[in-house]
């Protein structure tokens, strides 16, 4: 998906969890991504986080450490 859209959706999740106590919010964002984001989305998410993409909400950046790394991308024969 487009990077902007991914950032937007991650930040939308963060906005909900901002009203929670900080640690709970961080855990909430991570859990939500773990439960609902398909590995491709998480893979793109990590690539963007690692590249230091500027658009992410601070809560998302903090939550990244608790997001489950996706399984390695499938190697497609041929």
């Amino acid at each position: 998906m487009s990077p902007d859209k991914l950032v937007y959706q991650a930040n939308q999740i963060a906005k909900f969890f901002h009203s929670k106590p900080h640690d709970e919010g961080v855990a909430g964002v991570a859990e939500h991504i773990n439960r609902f984001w398909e590995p491709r989305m998480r893979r793109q998410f990590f690539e963007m986080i690692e590249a230091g993409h500027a658009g992410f909400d601070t809560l998302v950046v903090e939550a990244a450490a608790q997001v489950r790394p996706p399984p390695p991308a499938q190697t497609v024969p041929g």
Partner: protein
Amino acid sequence: MGLIHEVDYGTPESQAEKQVTLIVDGKPVTVPEGTSIMRASMEAGVEIPKLCATDMLDSFGSCRICLVEIEGRNGTPASCTTPVSEGMVVHTRTERLDAIRKGVMELYVSDHPSGWNEERGTGLSEFDKVATEVGLEENRYGLDGRNHVAPGNGSLNIDYLVRDESNPYFTYDASQCIVCSRCVRACEDVQGTFALTIEGRGFESRIVAGMSENFVESECVSCGACVQACPTDALREKTVLEHGMPERSVVTTCAYCGVGCSFKAEMKGDEVLRMMPYKGGDANHGHSCVKGRFAYGYATHRDRILKPMIREKISDPWREVSWEEALAHTASEFRRIQHQYGRTAVGGITSSRCTNEETYLVQKLVRQGFGNNNVDTCARVCHSPTGYGLGQSYGTSAGTQDFDSVEESDVIVVIGANPTDAHPVFGSRMKQRLREGARLIVIDPRRTDLVRSPHVKADYHLALRPGTNVALLTTLAHVIVTEGLVDEQFVRERCEWDAFQDWAGFVADEANSPEVVSSYIGVPAEDIRGAARLYATGGNGAIYYGLGVTEHSQGSTAVMAIANLAMATGNIGRRGVGVNPLRGQNNVQGSCDMGSFPHELPGYRHISGDATRAIYEELWGVKLDNEPGLRIPNMLDAAVDGSFRGLYVQGEDILQSDPDTHHVAAGLAAMECVVVQDLFLNETANYAHVFLPGSTFLEKDGTFTNAERRINRVRKVMEPKARYADWEATQELARALGLDWNYTHPSQIMDEIAATTPSFANVSYELLEKMGSVQWPCNDSAPEGTPIMHVDGFVRGKGRFIRTEYVATDEKTGPRFPLLLTTGRILSQYNVGAQTRRTENVVWHDEDRLEIHPHDAEQRGIRSGDWVRVASRAGETTLRALITDRVSPGVVYTTFHHPLTQANVVTTDYSDWATNCPEYKVTAVQVAPSNGPSDWQVEYEEQARRSRRIAPLAAE
């Protein structure tokens, strides 16, 4: 199998506890106090002839046929209006009674075609039967004098009315009417529309619709209750007049909305003559709406595709092929794509129109056959936030009540739902309760019919700005908390106290007070306070909500806010209260229950749970992926990115029903194999490479689960017109993919569901046969199902209060797009209209209209009926305007039933933060006069036309 005859006891059941014993024609019978003699007799097996009485309606006592004699009493009282008393001795057949009945019937036929030896009706009505029963043989009154029967024979008969054929489904022949007023009472008491009345007095009395209008021009909603009630042929289905009475019937479940009405499909040969509401149906108790009752013609419409078809490219014409070829081609394409692009490059979409068993098989095919979790369903675009929100707050994803619960509600809150249009049979139940005095709060940007209609008036209509639900719900909570209206005992006993205190502190903040919030939600503060007080203190408070809550960027938050309100006021866990999502489609509840979501196995169990996966891994003999799969919008994104190439879509039209049509089209166009299984070449099929013909609900066995979690049987009344029922087609596809599936009947699929899903553990076709229907959870702790949930405790243990901070949607109005567009349904049409547009229902609604406030219209120089262009950031479309003050200034509204309108060209791809449910209910738009269809509409229509070409078969 013959015609199912339901016993008509003549008057409604008495709910009294005290029992009374009487003797009817020598037979003792014991009934509750308050029962009529007529009903008691029927229970004793003695049928008293009657005309104006039926057990769907209160007794009326006008026809003078049901008279009886009671020992020790004078005269011959009407049995329908005389209640039983202890020790009463009743005689229903005596010489005196026979003579009176015969005399009364003779008076009736003296002004009825049957007394004139004219055959105008079926000759098989209740009236005809009573005439035979009382032994009537003649009309001694002759044929002279005033009457309603003779058309005039050359002279003018001012009493004669020509038949009203205006309604497409039934006729009104006044000459056969006996003015028993059953139709009038059905329209008032059952349907609640008050469209019919009796005009004139004495001999001039007659039934009229509206202000003496044709039926179709009156406010009649064509629910069919009057036709069902009519004891003569005065109101009669046209199909019956044309083909005669049906010969056999099968009880099944309607395939339209989430009310899930039970019907008798009444047949003659292989043809459905009519759908008669089934009194034994626990969702509808014998009532119906225009869709379920009459709009089944799509099942035999000539547009149905009955042969499988394939094509190389979507620009090619379709080529008809055998099932074998279509399935083999599909299987080889899916395997090729997986080989070439990876295991996760394909997926499936289950249908909320199909049965539980069919839905279960599609997700099984994806999980077992494709080896991934890329399965989703149309609930993504409607009630996925309900699943998430109620799951978080209460621990389960479903409405808490049965429909009957509304009978004990004192305050009804309707939020973002329009039950009289979208869930009409339940809407009528709700109106019955409102007429009995229940109070009503409507929260909706638009003035729906419930706000003000005959004998119904909302105490509060909070016409908020679209997109501000969470702010409103939170400020209602503010009032409840700060004014001390919380049911503290309930909260302490049933909910997490710490979470409550945290939440209470949050909502009590001044920023959430009505006085502050009112400025941006557009609702006066005193109305907010009044509504909150009424809900919290008015007795049993029940919340019913629809897609006006869920289809927002804060949809899930709003669901949690609703859950908070119910907990804070103790309105959960008994009859008359609760939180009730009104489900859109017949089986959207079921499709969610059956594991259609990419992160959940059946019964809402997350895919990451090892124990749950193990159950299926053992049964299916494969390793299941423990990662969540792609949701519909993610599939389309992945398709555009190139990592998703094949999609199996059963009974779902994502191109028309999903947001941002351009994006959906781009995603579909990027795929290499799109398989559409449907009744018609729907809009999505324009982008398909394989078309598999679908089957209607009349052509299969199975179950649907309605909005009350009620599992209702769907029964086959005719053979599949395209060889396979949908579950069989999926099974054949699975076999073509190499899976060893051997179901011979859907009951075996249900057995597999029950064996693997705790909340369905005791569900079986045998149980459904015995009970009629059951509401899940249905297992050893609730062997006969669960009408009301969370009675002694929440499913998750203690209820959880969750902070619901309002975050304004990013879809904002501005100088370019100053108006907010919101969307909804109309009674006569259903969703994308694929079914209802192929019936006579188009008489009531043949195009989508843009509702606009007179002020906004005048500013733009728009007159009612003008073509207008509606443009948003995403796209533009044109339709005709309807000027009305149902919408507030600044808000416009349209339905989305017609493909050419394509309201979703305009909607954006903003979505709910938790579930990606699209924000259909808020789009910033500009409206301007226009000459006609937009370029896009013209192009689209041409593209659709070309993509629907079917190549003629080469001569063999």
